[in-house]
């Protein structure tokens, strides 16, 4: 009988035992506890055996730039190519800090197998069909000084560029997980390394300009004080609602504030009439009263994560080679000071440049672009050609 079967039997037994009426026989209770302990130990043993079995396929160990890599023979070539590309991009972004990663960051590229495939049938839909064992995806895992960093799954067959991009994403998390407080949670435990595309920047501009928070909108409109407050660069304001929102924002804020999982609990203390007056009838005073009864934690920094990332990325760009190292040094009194240290310029200068960059990313006029116009005209021309040759009277 395999360990797996033993564990299953013990779980079943445990479940049955739990369903029995309360026992008082000490011998029986001792026997039950022993069985539970055995089940627990077997579960962890099974996990470790699984890990050993999975790792046994990782016979290739190599060093690519700053990365120590473990992978399978089948993935060796593509891994080398993709990690070389990722290493070059990471060096560009991290500067001299990249070298300090060497020897600390280990990447594991592991095959994920499947012995079935999905088959699509009309009316029935997708069903599983048994098939020869094959690779369906590849998991990219990382550890930094032995600490696990969240990994990613990449579709197989692999494309070098896609794997390199995913590698950078993992590196962003690896570096972001080891930043000094208070900037680590401010950056959502991720240090952005990749340059933003024009589309991403335009999307960020749109998000900021139509934000739920007045302070963010004012920031994009050119108010640097609003930016400083919206980013919470110095400290979190004492009265977050007044500092970040204006009257017109309050009904929506009252509807959305707080962690969705905890909203029910938070709103228990607030009368239904007050909630209705605020959310339903949009009475600003009712909203003020309602929001005043919510804890401060219900109001998070209004500047979205993407904006914070973009500010941090700008700081790294301005700061150059040693920027990441400076950012990782703790001791700064505020987020603004920490970013300014990384950038090597004042917080005001950093904000000024960031605002200029955001303003430049404002989407162009929504006039259709040339490729759309050409595609439309081509389609129209083909249709006209078809129509001109037609003989509908036949």
């Amino acid at each position, binding site marked *: 009988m395999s360990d797996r079967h033993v564990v299953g039997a013990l779980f079943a037994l445990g479940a049955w035992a739990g369903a029995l009426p309360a026992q008082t026989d000490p011998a029986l209770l001792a026997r039950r506890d022993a069985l539970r302990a055995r089940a627990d130990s077997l579960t962890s043993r099974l996990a470790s055996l699984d890990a050993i079995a999975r790792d046994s396929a990782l016979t290739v160990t190599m060093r690519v730039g700053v990365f120590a890599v473990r992978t399978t023979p089948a993935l060796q070539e593509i891994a080398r190519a993709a990690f070389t590309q990722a290493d070059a991009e990471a060096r560009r972004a991290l500067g001299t800090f990249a070298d300090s990663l060497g020897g600390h960051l280990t990447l594991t590229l592991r095959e994920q197998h499947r012995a079935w*495939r*999905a*088959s*699509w*049938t*009309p009316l029935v839909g*997708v069903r599983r*069909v048994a098939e020869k064992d094959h690779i369906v995806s590849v998991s990219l895992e990382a550890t930094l000084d032995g600490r696990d960093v969240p990994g990613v799954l990449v579709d197989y067959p692999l494309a070098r560029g896609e794997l390199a991009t995913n590698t950078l994403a993992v590196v962003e998390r690896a570096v972001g997980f080891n930043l000094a407080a208070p900037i680590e949670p401010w950056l959502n435990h991720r240090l952005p390394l990749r340059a933003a595309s024009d589309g991403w920047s335009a999307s960020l*501009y*749109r998000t900021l*300009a*139509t*934000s*739920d928070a007045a302070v963010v*909108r004012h920031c*994009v*409109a050119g108010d640097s004080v609003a930016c400083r407050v919206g980013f919470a660069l110095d400290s979190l304001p004492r009265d977050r609602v007044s500092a970040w929102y*204006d*009257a*017109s*924002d309050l*009904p*929506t804020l009252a509807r959305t504030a707080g962690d969705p999982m905890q909203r029910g609990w938070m709103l228990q203390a607030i009368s239904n009439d007050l909630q209705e007056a605020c959310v339903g009838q949009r009475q600003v005073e009712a909203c003020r009263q309602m929001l005043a009864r919510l804890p401060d934690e219900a109001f998070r920094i209004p500047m979205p994560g993407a904006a914070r990332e973009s500010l941090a990325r700008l700081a790294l760009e301005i700061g150059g080679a040693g920027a990441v190292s400076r950012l990782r040094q703790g001791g700064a009194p505020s987020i603004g000071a920490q970013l300014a240290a990384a950038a090597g310029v004042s917080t005001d200068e950093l904000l000024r440049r960031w605002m200029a960059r955001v303003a430049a990313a*404002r*989407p162009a*006029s*929504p*006039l*259709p672009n040339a*490729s*759309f*116009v050409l*595609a*439309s005209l*081509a*389609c*129209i021309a*083909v*249709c*006209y050609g*078809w*129509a*001109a040759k*037609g*003989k*509908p*009277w*036949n």
Partner: protein
Amino acid sequence: MFRAILYTQWKWARPVLLLAMLVAGYIPVDALRAAPYKSVDTYHIPSLYLGITSASVYYQLLALGVAVVVAISTWQADGQRRHVYALSLPVPRWRFVLLRFGAGAALLGTVAVAVGLFGALAAALAPLPPMLHAYPIGLAVRFWLGALVPFALIFALLSSDPRRVRLLVAAVVTVIVVDLLLASLGTTEKPLILGWVLDGLYSGRGPLAAFLSKWMLVDV
């Protein structure tokens, strides 16, 4: 000559075009209703933006609907008389088709102009905050081009040799059936050709790409 053709097509499609213009006037009013017509400071920008984003779909539906009706009405009268009158006119067929197509495009243009004018009017009445701007011309151009593509497709189908259309439909049905059969035999995870066709039509460069993007009267 073009004026004569335009007049007939206007007469045939007039009720729908007038209705479309009315709808074109109503959509921005409905979208900007979130904005009180008093001052910039008192309304909620995200709600306003959401309303305008939702209106994008109504503009697209309007463009599609009016394009279909104009295309059908363009050929209906000729089709009823088996094109005898059109064929007795002293103009080459390609030119007659061009005149009909041009007139249809012009009529769609009138609705696009209405979209632009009403959009500009509504945006002028609802004072926009500094972060938001009205783009009635961009919207009108997008509306016109967006409507022209389905108009051209239906126009081409309706002015085709019925045998050709039957052949085309038969080919499409055959491809779909073969595609579904192959998929059901387990060769593919999902219908391949249909997937390609839909991807092609709706990709960024496909002829229906216009319907993927947002048609915003007001944007940042």
